[in-house]
């Protein structure tokens, strides 16, 4: 018998639900030939909390704190999507100052979330030190949130009709300080990671997502922009005051893990630009519109779309004129990215699974809702 004809069995490896690199409770059923991935079947839902059902039993104001818990790394963008939909339904005008404050909160959240991405991505590739550096910088943002909203992660500070409170004294100075500090720190990450030969070997050309495939599978955010598609809801369908702000839609034609990583790194710099503009041009005025305590939006439907750090975060609300939504649907980017993952993974190695999974930056709470 020739060795070449010896039948070999494929191995099914359960990566997760408890695994250091699945960023929570995700299970990937990998079919392996040695180290090579032949197939991948993601099993999700371990963190399903029935958010959409909960919403049907809460008033609009009451559901807001729940939205923070969907994508817990950038709670403000969840708030924003929900609030946008409600405001469109009920026809609420938000004061301009509140709009600027919302953008500040959203962009700080974006930086915080992207820093966690850099951290976990580096950690997945065993560059543990970059993990701690990114968290160190993120801690400054957390302190800013704490100072303004009183909470670190789940701020619930974007409210229907405005924001929870005006900026406290000294916030603007500290925010400016942070903006000045972040740039040089990002340059340090470039020295530690972006240019590093091993990091490049692990990410360049790995996990290629062609742009057509990305659009087909409804990928969005940095995952799609890392494939060269300039689709950013802040520009495509501007909300709040993004129209007035100068920033670039970052794209990278590489389509690989490195491309997605570089997009996020550059987006942090763009977010700093946005925050500085907002702080400089902050108008005076109210931060909260008059909203009836028992909000009853007219019957109808509205879709709020927000560019969250992970991509298109949508909130589709159908109202029957009551105090709680008839149906509330949360369109979360990670869910769609996860669906596309098996297409990207095939043929790569176990080590690459971690890199590719890290590079699409999933949040399980958001995927499972």
């Amino acid at each position, binding site marked *: 018998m020739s060795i070449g004809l010896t039948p070999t069995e494929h191995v099914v490896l359960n990566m997760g639900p408890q695994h250091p690199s699945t960023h929570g409770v995700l299970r990937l059923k990998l079919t392996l030939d040695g180290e090579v991935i032949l197939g991948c079947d993601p099993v999700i*839902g371990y963190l399903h909390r*029935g958010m959409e059902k909960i919403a049907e039993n809460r008033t609009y104001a009451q559901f807001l704190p729940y939205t923070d818990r969907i994508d817990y790394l950038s709670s403000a963008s969840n708030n924003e999507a929900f609030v946008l939909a409600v405001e469109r339904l009920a026809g609420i005008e938000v004061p301009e100052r509140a709009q600027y404050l919302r953008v500040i909160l959203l962009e700080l959240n974006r930086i915080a979330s992207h820093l966690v991405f850099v951290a976990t991505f580096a950690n997945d590739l065993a560059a543990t030190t970059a993990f701690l550096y990114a968290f160190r910088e993120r801690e400054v943002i957390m302190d800013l949130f704490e100072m303004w909203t009183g909470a670190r992660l789940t701020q619930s500070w974007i409210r229907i009709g405005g924001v929870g409170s005006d900026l406290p004294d000294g916030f603007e100075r500290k925010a400016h300080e942070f903006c000045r500090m972040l740039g040089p720190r990002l340059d340090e990450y470039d020295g530690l990671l972006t240019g590093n030969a091993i990091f490049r070997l692990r990410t360049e050309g790995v996990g290629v997502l062609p742009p057509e495939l990305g*659009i087909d599978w409804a990928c969005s955010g940095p995952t799609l922009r890392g494939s060269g598609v300039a689709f950013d809801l802040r520009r*495509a369908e501007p909300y709040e005051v993004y129209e007035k702000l100068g920033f670039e839609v970052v794209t990278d034609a590489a389509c690989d893990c490195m491309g997605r990583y570089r997009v996020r790194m550059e987006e942090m710099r763009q977010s700093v630009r946005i925050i500085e503009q907002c702080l400089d041009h902050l108008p005076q005025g109210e931060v909260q519109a008059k909203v009836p305590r028992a909000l009853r939006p007219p019957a109808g439907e509205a879709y709020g779309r927000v560019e969250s750090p992970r991509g298109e975060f949508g909130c*589709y609300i159908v109202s029957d004129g009551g105090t709680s939504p008839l149906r509330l*649907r949360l*369109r979360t980017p990670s869910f769609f990215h996860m669906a596309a993952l098996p297409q990207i993974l095939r043929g790569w190695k176990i080590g690459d699974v971690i890199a590719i999974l890290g590079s699409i930056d999933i949040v399980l709470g958001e995927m499972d*809702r």
Partner: protein
Amino acid sequence: MTPEDLKAQFGDDVEAAEQVGRELRLRLRPASLVACCRFCKERGYSYPADITAVDTGAEMRVVYRLVSLQRGEHIVISVGVPRTGGSLPSVVGVLKGADWPEREVFDLFGVRFVGHPDLRRILLTDDWQGYPLLKTAQPAKGS
């Protein structure tokens, strides 16, 4: 694309069509669903932003949201489906991104998508009884 274009293309299968802001809201009969999705995709509405269902207690509709990334316009197709044991043709053949959202609608509303390659529960466990997002669903009993 205007409501008239779609009415001209699909005739009586279009129950209603109106333009609201950047959204073109379309109520469609199931028979034209796949054809309409293909028609829209060929005209640039290739980004399947979302697929979900709405149960009002009286009727249930599955809602497809297709977006044109170039023009920033939405087409929202809603298709009526019976509240129990309903089924629709799957659009996975046209829009690959419909794979998981259709599974989710099946999981939470019980709508069967005929022609879906892998119609399993996705968020809930395989042995879950019932479809929780139906208005008639009873709360699961906690331990």
